[in-house]
């Protein structure tokens, strides 16, 4: 009876709770709150309803109420699944993962042996990566329900204690844990209970971790493994044979595999290694014929001869053999033949495939510059296309393209004179057009044009010329060409990426945004590809206009941040032991993405710069950002570089282009930029907090309940951050970073580091810190400090005005070459002044308030002989600062009003005149590109003027 009653109640309550859930689901949090309160009036003790109320409050940003509501539910130690689910959801949202552990610990204590609760408890330990606790719970689970999954949960938890846990750095402990894990599985095997392939995988993994390669080999090749794990990758065999030094066996195995599968690079690589190892193993005194590489070469030749269908595999392997022999000072030429001839043969066979360039490029670094260049000329000659002849068919054209790409990689272009390069560009353009009109018609919209690579190469060449001449004309022409290609071949992402780059170089945000949208970058691409656009937006000349892009990016990150731990739980659910570590590392990489952290900081700075509401509105928006100046939340040493720099195709000379060095250098600088920007944010926030002490939200959200702020804390924070601020700049100047090389079109644009060091950020905010503190204490040097700051304001204004004058002057010579730099400087000036304007408005508000209440405070602990300056005087000084700022902002506005749109290079009508384009196509094309530049400038002007208007109003009252 009682049971029945309970079941009825559950069903009833579930029905009543439904509206709350439904409203939460669709984001109608206010209604959810109302529904939960309605329900609680009838059933005040319904825990789940109370928990849901807590969740609604949390979603509404009413953190304190939510906190106490959830706390009271938790204190009742709930055991029902739905309440526990809601509570753990809330704690997950608030990142209080240890509370979930507590929650389920209580629940399990009251219901010992409950499988479901134990499983939840286990997962809660997984979230905080407490492997020891995981192990204990897994064993309890196994006792409650002897399922293999639970047994292996405990095994893997033991493994993780050995290799990832706090004791993993002690070798003895590590060995102990791994030995224990092995014993656990051994026992299971003995009892005949090993069931799945992942269990078999885990066993192999444990053996390998202990360097027990022989045991692993026996298990892998044994009957049980064959039965449980028939899909075990053959690479596992390679790995073990290599560890065991059994090169002969490996060699035999690979010959068999290659006989069946003749195009597998992984096999050839291992095969060649085994051959070289066999060679090494021959004792010198042995009389029998030693293993010779002739066997290897014969094997490759035999594959080539016996294959009916030509595959790249054996040919590439032969080149690799040649390369490795040379590296070992062995007579490669004697055995394998002339290197150039081998490459040419390869080119003959596979030059019509677009991957041929990548393939040949693999072997270029191993030969001298002279040999590279002579090889490049041979390939060009082989391609059979010259200045007087055109490709006969698609395949022929692709060969020509391949030879051209290789010759660039060999450094042929950097040695040409500028005139030659321009002539070369024209030839490429004509080849593109010829290829397009002859072989490129009737393409599917999803296909790339077969002659597109000519145009991509042409754009790179034009960049070379532009760079050499320090003039934008050539590159602008390349942009027009790319835009033309894009009309013919709408899905060519290479064209979009290069156009995007050029638009950014020229400060044309509208064009850049267009290309970015066209690329349809989403999800994880926002992280790996963010560097091509999102990362270039701060100080680009737009503020509110770029917020959207930050938002989309941040939305991806916050979503995946929330989900990140659930991915790991998933691997436990499916017992995918082979992926657990990978998932954990992936989680780290994603959470510590530099892109993520930098984008959040920039978005916050951008928001403060753009404040336009009343002082109260601005302040509450500020509080909602919950910046904690005293607390550096960035894990600087963990930051991760997730950029996919290889996504942009390039054929730059191999001896100059070093992507990995570029990656390292740029990453270091980006971290320094982030140092400046995040410290700027925190320092600035400390100014605000000094006058507008944060209450409520921040405190309730913070995990740290023990700390109660004391009055002196805030001023100390300002002092401390100011010291870090000047210290940071000092260090950065000493570091003497070099601007990133701009040798080639595909190089990354310079980071903002040098810009930030050159502009008056350091002194401006340093002096501002003093002003804020003097104003707070009423120090006698306040008047002096006011003067200093107003002088700074004048110089920032002048920087803005002068930059615009300079930009207008440049328009007479080259409207685009310095455009980006000028826009950055103006944007930086306005950023500084906008932050300052908001600060003044907050100070003014505070001083006026306290003046009104006449609450004349005594400054405590003041042992100076002088009386502090009265609040009234302070208020007057502040008013004066505001008046002055208003003037300077107006001066900036006046300058921006006369900022001219960039003049575009050369006479527009003569553009691409030598192309076989139809005149009307040409006219609309150039018209469109020009219009994009014009629109971009106008949008920027409107936006900057609106920004100034808001700031003038902010300080004008």
């Amino acid at each position: 009876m009682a049971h029945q009653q309970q079941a009825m109640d559950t069903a009833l309550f579930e029905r009543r709770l439904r509206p709350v859930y439904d409203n939460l689901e669709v984001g109608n949090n206010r209604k959810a709150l109302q529904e939960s309160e309605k329900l609680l009036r009838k059933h005040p003790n319904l825990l789940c309803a109370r928990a849901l109320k807590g969740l609604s409050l949390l979603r509404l940003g009413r953190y304190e109420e939510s906190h106490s509501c959830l706390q009271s539910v938790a204190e009742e130690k709930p055991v029902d699944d739905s309440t526990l689910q809601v509570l753990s959801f809330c704690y997950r949202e608030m990142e209080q993962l240890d509370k979930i552990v507590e929650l389920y610990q209580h629940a399990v204590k009251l219901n010992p042996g409950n499988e479901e609760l134990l499983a939840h408890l286990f997962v809660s330990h997984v979230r905080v990566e407490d492997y020891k606790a995981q192990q204990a719970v897994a064993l309890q689970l196994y006792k409650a329900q002897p399922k293999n999954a639970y047994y292996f949960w405990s095994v893997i938890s033991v493994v993780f204690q050995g290799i990832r846990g706090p004791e993993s750095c002690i070798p003895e402990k590590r060995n102990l844990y791994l030995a224990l894990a092995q014993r656990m599985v051994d026992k299971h095997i003995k009892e005949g209970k090993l069931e799945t392939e992942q269990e078999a995988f885990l066993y192999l993994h444990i053996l390998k971790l202990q360097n027990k390669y022989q045991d692993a080999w026996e298990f892998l090749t044994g009957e049980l493994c064959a039965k449980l794990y028939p899909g075990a990758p053959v690479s596992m065999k390679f790995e073990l044979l290599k560890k065991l030094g059994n090169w002969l066996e490996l060699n035999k195995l690979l010959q068999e595999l290659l006989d069946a599968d003749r195009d597998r690079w992984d096999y050839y690589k291992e095969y060649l290694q085994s051959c070289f190892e066999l060679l090494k193993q021959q004792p010198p005194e042995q009389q029998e014929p030693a293993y010779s590489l002739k066997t290897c070469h014969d094997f490759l030749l035999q594959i080539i001869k016996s294959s009916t269908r030509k595959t790249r595999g054996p040919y590439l392997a032969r080149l690799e053999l040649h390369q490795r022999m040379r590296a070992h000072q062995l007579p490669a030429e004697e055995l394998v033949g002339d290197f150039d001839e081998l490459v040419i043969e390869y080119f003959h066979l596979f030059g019509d495939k677009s991957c041929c360039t990548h393939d040949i490029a693999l072997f270029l670094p191993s030969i001298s510059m002279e040999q590279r260049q002579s090889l490049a000329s041979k390939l060009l000659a082989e391609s059979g296309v010259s200045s007087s002849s055109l490709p006969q068919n698609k395949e022929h054209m692709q060969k020509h393209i391949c030879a051209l790409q290789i010759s660039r990689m060999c450094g042929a272009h950097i040695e040409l004179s500028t005139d030659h390069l321009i002539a070369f560009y024209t030839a490429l353009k004509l080849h593109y057009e010829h290829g397009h009109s002859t072989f490129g018609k009737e393409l599917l919209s999803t296909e790339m044009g077969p002659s597109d690579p000519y145009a991509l190469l042409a754009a790179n060449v034009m960049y070379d010329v532009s760079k050499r001449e320090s003039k934008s004309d050539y590159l602008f022409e390349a942009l027009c060409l790319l835009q033309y290609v894009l009309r013919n071949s709408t899905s060519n992402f290479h064209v979009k990426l290069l156009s995007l780059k050029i638009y950014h170089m020229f400060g044309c945000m509208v064009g850049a945004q267009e290309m970015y949208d066209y690329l349809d970058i989403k999800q994880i691409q926002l992280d790996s590809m963010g560097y091509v656009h999102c990362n270039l937006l701060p100080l680009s000349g737009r503020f509110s206009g770029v917020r959207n892009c930050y938002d989309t990016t941040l939305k991806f990150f916050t979503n995946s941040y929330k989900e990140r731990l659930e991915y790991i739980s998933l691997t436990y659910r499916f017992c995918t032991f082979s992926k657990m570590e990978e998932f954990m590392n992936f989680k780290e990489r994603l959470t510590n993405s530099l892109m993520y952290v930098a984008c959040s900081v920039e978005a916050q700075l951008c928001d403060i710069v753009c404040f336009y509401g009343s002082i109260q509105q601005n302040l509450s928006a500020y509080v909602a950002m919950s910046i904690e100046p005293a607390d550096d939340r960035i894990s600087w040493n963990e930051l991760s570089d997730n950029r996919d720099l290889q996504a942009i195709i390039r054929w730059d000379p191999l001896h100059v282009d070093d992507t990995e060095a570029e990656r390292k250098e740029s990453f270091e600088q980006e971290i320094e930029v982030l140092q400046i920007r995040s410290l700027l944010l925190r320092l600035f926030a400390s100014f605000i907090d000094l006058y507008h002490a944060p209450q409520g939200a921040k405190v309730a959200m913070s995990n740290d309940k023990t700390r109660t702020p004391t009055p002196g804390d805030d001023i100390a924070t300002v002092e401390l951050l100011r010291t870090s601020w000047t210290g940071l700049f000092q260090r950065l100047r000493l570091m003497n970073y070099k601007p990133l090389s701009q040798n080639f079109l595909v190089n990354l644009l310079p980071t903002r580091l040098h810009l930030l060091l050159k502009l008056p950020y350091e002194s401006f905010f340093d002096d501002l810190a003093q002003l804020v503190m003097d104003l707070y204490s009423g120090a006698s040097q306040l008047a002096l400090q006011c003067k200093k700051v107003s002088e700074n304001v004048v110089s920032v204004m002048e920087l803005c005005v002068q930059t615009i004058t300079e930009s207008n002057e440049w328009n007479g010579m080259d409207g685009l070459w310095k455009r980006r730099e000028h826009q950055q400087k103006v944007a930086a000036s306005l950023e500084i002044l906008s932050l300052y304007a908001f600060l003044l408005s907050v100070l003014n508000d505070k001083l006026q308030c306290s003046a009104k209440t006449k609450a004349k405070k005594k400054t405590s602990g003041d042992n100076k002989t002088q009386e502090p300056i009265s609040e009234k005087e302070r208020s007057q000084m502040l008013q004066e600062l505001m008046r002055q700022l208003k003037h300077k902002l107006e001066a900036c506005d006046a300058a921006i009003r006369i900022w001219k749109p960039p003049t575009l290079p050369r006479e527009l009508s003569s553009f691409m005149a030598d192309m076989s384009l139809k005149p009307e196509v040409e006219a609309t094309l150039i018209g469109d590109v020009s219009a994009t530049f014009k629109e971009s400038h106008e949008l920027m002007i409107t936006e900057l003027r609106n920004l100034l208007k808001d700031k003038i109003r902010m300080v004008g009252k």
Partner: protein
Amino acid sequence: MTTLRPFTCDDLFKYNNVNFDPLTETYGLSFYTQYLAKWPEYFQLAESPSGHIMGYIMGKVEGHMDNWHGHVTALTVSPDYRRLGLAGLLMNFLEDISEKKRAYFVDLFVRKSNKVAINMYTNLGYIIYRTILEYYSGDQDEDAYDMRKALSRDVNKKSVIPYTQPVRLEDIDMN
């Protein structure tokens, strides 16, 4: 010339030159992680000697009784590495794994308009098993072909007797 290896989480950061292709969908993380966690051996990647991602295949194995089958969820090859037989290699791999898992057949869905793909699958031995109406939603909904190839366990090739009537997605028992 290819290296085949399991797709890893880190590859998600590097697959752009493949995923920028207009016919390749970039999914949310949970989609990939679910496949990686549940069917790790069914998510395989082809890498070029220079370390570029050439393409990948993503699939699963599911179903009851004689409907136990491998399924191809996504198959894509970078534009730079087409016409090298890579798709066939990846499909072979998936069929092979499905054989080892004792599946009866392999199936996949393809846009009715994607002639290139349909042709390729036909050459690999797949037949059009049935048409699924309005399977792909978008500006204009599109029908899908459900294509199948029997594996050795299906001795009588029962799984590849085509359906003549088109069906709707909601009418299919996916298991």
